[in-house]
């Protein structure tokens, strides 16, 4: 099942990369970035499962936790900036 998840992670990364480049709308870009992030996290977590030890490797889990919190922080800033921009345009 590991390989299925690896391929899923790669697919998520590339479709969201494509849509990030193509999208002209800030909201769509933000969503694309978040999905790209999820793809990268999936890659990490799948790697954690890909060990000989009984329970999965906890290091990627901790790294992904950090990554998610950082991604949410960046999203919060982006949302605030976009709202600000819309207000200026009104």
């Amino acid at each position, binding site marked *: 099942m590991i390989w299925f998840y690896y391929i899923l992670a790669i697919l998520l*990364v590339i479709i969201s990369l494509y849509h*990030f480049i193509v999208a002209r709308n*800030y909201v769509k*870009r*933000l969503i694309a*970035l978040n999905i*790209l*992030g999820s793809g*990268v996290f999936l*890659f*990490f977590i799948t*790697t954690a499962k*890909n060990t000989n030890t009984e329970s999965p490797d906890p290091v*990627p889990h901790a*790294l992904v936790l*950090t*990554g998610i919190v*950082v*991604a949410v*922080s*960046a999203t919060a*800033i*982006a949302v605030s*900036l*976009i709202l*600000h*921009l819309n207000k*200026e*345009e009104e």
Partner: protein
Amino acid sequence: MISFDLGYLIVLPLLASIFSLISPIRVYIALAFSLLSFLLSVYSFLYTLRDNTPLYQWIGGWTPPLGIGLRLDGLSGFFLLMIGIVSLFVALYSISFFNVEYKRQGRFFWFFFFFLWAGLNAFFLSEDLFNLYVALEVLSLTAVILVALPGYKKAIKASLNYLFLSILASMFYLLGIAMLYANYGVLSMSLLSQKLSDTQEFIYALFPITIALAIKSALLPFHFWLPPAHSSTVAPASALLSSLVIKPPAYLMLRLWMEVLPKDKSLEYLSIVLSIMGALAIFIGSYYAIRQKTIKRLLAYSTVAQMGYLFIMVPLYYHGEILKEAVLQAFALQVFSHALAKASMFLSSGNAIYVAKRDELSYMPGFAHSHPFTFFALFFSGATLIGLPLSAGFVAKFLFLELSIKLGFFLHGGIMLLGSLLASLYVYPIWKECFSSHPTKFYDKPIPQLMEISAFLLGFLAFSSGMITGFLLEGIARG
């Protein structure tokens, strides 16, 4: 006796950022902590001069691969000194700057200023790839907020574009780390360099990492975010962004190429591609800088060009194994001279805008007559950017030229000399305007002394440090 700990370099600025936000005597706290952090930076620099071996500190006592390592060697000590100098003078400048302009932003500025300092120290000390990711994220989020700080539409738009690209780059970098971790199972650079030898899988991971670092350091196809971001914010923030924030990715690139990656044929091709991009960045950045009519955009494009030098050197990183110390010295001095000079120029441009209320070059007052300090700041820093003799920029380019001749990269040396010529073409208009002999009535408006002096001192240091490079680079030379 309290023993020296690398953690102080990170914790002190972090605590300073909290105190500067919650305390009413913001400016005094900022001043005190800036001085303290500066002294720490100087101490760590002197430490690298005194000690021959690099100082490794395992945080929590956990050695890699389990824990995170901090490393203080000649190169990182030198960069800590650079961060300390630039940040201290920008802090002095900002005390005065936010007193006369942008008072609302001044309330928050110190929080981000110290965060930036902590992030930079963390980045240059770290030797763990994931830790570098978090430090990079601290840097880029701070930078994004600093760009948006003035709050007008142009700045917000620039900052938003910057944020999107920077998140994309971070995700690519993280993907690269995930790929490396899947193959080698370590995150520490020193362990990775042992595991990488005689393998080839790292090439796949190097691809996203290189793209990420190229985006973050505004290498040519990805340079478009930089000019709006660096030119639309307030002067101290521009100075910090253009002189310091842009450097860490290039530094990481150097570390990877010189210390981690093994010799591989495909790396040679990649190094050629990167050096072509660097050369194009020099030409195109300089071309756009020459065409600019406003001083801040000119300086921002000049940053694109100057970053090109760091990437045109990539084949030297690859081939320069035997001359490793010399390569590190050339790199370090180029970064150092550009950081000091560019910070001084942006601070001076802040002075000019403060006087003229416009940022077109043609509105720049005849500073040589009215504000000699600002003029000399622009003169010295401009001379360093061009690389006039005696300046630090000159020594950096000299070292680089010597290296390229020794290793047989004559074309690279030639392009660099051409870049110097182009730099003089875009610095010259600034000097010319300073001597313009038609000062109208508002041109003799006094600039707060602290703003003038800190900009001048930075420029002067950038120029005069060319004369003490032997002392500055001693730590790196000993390896």
